[in-house]
């Protein structure tokens, strides 16, 4: 949030300045929430359900969510499937290469807490949140397209309540 994030500080002492910042926040958040481009990133079975959600019957495009192949142009990382130890550093790199504001939706039991592979498996990471910060968890194995869409709607509500300073420069990048 280049200069805009400093706006609320100046606007405080201007009478009626708070109104301007909240209006601006709402406009920015509305534009971000209604065009969450997700990164094409299928790990396992949930990727097939994500494909069906992206296809004509359940149609992600109604939410303005188009799949982008590269992390540079995507705002949302849909982690669909089982994360293994060999894939973990790659996911961390991909997450860093996305430009902020960026969000993560962990789809399915495997991405949330290891799912059916929690016990007895030597190579599964028990949850994606051990690697990258996750905003929304969608339960199910694989979750139905409707529950994936409900997860995305919850994410849109979360994006709409963000403040201008949330993404400002002085927050130390982890």
């Amino acid at each position: 949030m280049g200069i805009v994030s400093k706006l609320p500080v100046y606007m405080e002492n201007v009478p009626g300045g708070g109104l301007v910042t909240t209006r601006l926040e709402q406009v920015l958040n509305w534009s971000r929430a209604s065009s969450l481009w997700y990164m094409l990133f299928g790990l396992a079975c949930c990727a097939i359900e994500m494909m069906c959600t992206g296809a004509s019957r359940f149609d992600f495009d109604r939410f303005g969510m188009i799949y982008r192949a590269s992390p540079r142009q995507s705002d949302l990382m849909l982690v669909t499937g089982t994360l293994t130890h060999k894939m973990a550093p790659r996911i961390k790199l991909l997450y860093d290469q996305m430009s902020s504001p960026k969000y993560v939706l962990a789809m399915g039991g495997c991405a949330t807490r290891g799912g059916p592979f929690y016990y007895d498996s030597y190579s599964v990471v028990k949850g994606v949140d051990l690697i990258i910060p996750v905003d929304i968890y969608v339960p199910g194995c694989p979750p139905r397209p409707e529950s994936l869409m409900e997860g995305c709607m919850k994410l849109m509500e979360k994006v709409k309540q963000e403040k201008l300073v949330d993404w400002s420069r002085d927050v130390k990048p982890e």
Partner: protein
Amino acid sequence: MDDEKYIEIDPVTGTSSDSGFPTEEFMVNMGPQHPSTHGVCRLLLTMDGENVKHCQPHIGYLHRAIEKICENRKYQMITPLMDRFEYLMSMACGWLYCLGVERIAEVEVPERGEYLRVLMTELNRIASHLIFLATFGLDLGAVTPFLYGLRDREYIVDLFEETSGQRLLYNYIRIGGVAKDLSVGFEKKCLKFIDYFLPIIDDYEDLLTNNPIFLTRTKNVGVLSRDLALDYAAAGPVLRASGIKWDLRRDDPYGCYDKFDFEIPTGENGDTWDRYIVRIREMRESCSIVRQAIEGLPEGDFKAKVKPSFKPPAGECYTRVESARGEMGAYIVSDGTNKPTRLKLRGASYNHIMALPEICPGIKIADLVAIFASFDSIMPEVDR
């Protein structure tokens, strides 16, 4: 420089061999996150310009250690895990595992159970070939097959949801038979789908099969010769496209496939187009098998009685099932306790990706995408 030819281009490798410009190679990762690797497979390509000189597959990004997990699970608890072994054809995985356990424990599956298994696996084969059509078209740049394929797959997924309650991982085939009987009116809906679907396959054929762009992109691209296919133990449509008439449903019969008559489509010279056309024809065969299964469905119960404390005698057995991608094998070793001591799973895509470096030298990277898509290999059966 001889004046007659300005640049002498070596046809095979595409590099200019005259002394003036020796070209250097560079390495590119067609890596884990790539739209056309259908999952997380990494191909480390040594490139010269746009021609691939050498391809080195790296797998293991989806290695979930299913075999280690199954060594600590009771026999009935393994069937849901089996669906995750190959999630596009999970009926066949369940059948593969139950077939092995039934052979070891001599469990007799009733007639209706066998018919339901054939019916559901053939429907699942159509759904899996539709996903192949979708991703194959998308990789070659045609978006319409993607939308058509997934739209028609939703009909089949509704049928599965009715019988097993799940869209993708059904856990429907259990030891001794199937989980539930068909719901009321399932036969009518299934026949209605088949009547709707057969002309739709002709639409797909009009869209792609004789499309000149599609032909130049796929005709004799990535030829897998007969002996190479056999040497790498390729299976299923990839083997049949190379001209070898080998289908487990006919040559190593299991279940009640001998009661159905269907013919096995094969290709001639094993290129990408043959692998595509073999799958399209297989969809038609599966439709006729589904119709025969519905019409000949016998009465009676659908599952043999299996006690919850099920303990098969000590023994071992290797069973093979014809899945959409090829021959799936399960080697089950039991030592009399209620847990298998070893469950080795073999997927067909494992061998297809092993054979990829043999085809790669000299092709363009766009052809590599087409070849990889024509193998229709997905990562769970490679990494297990």
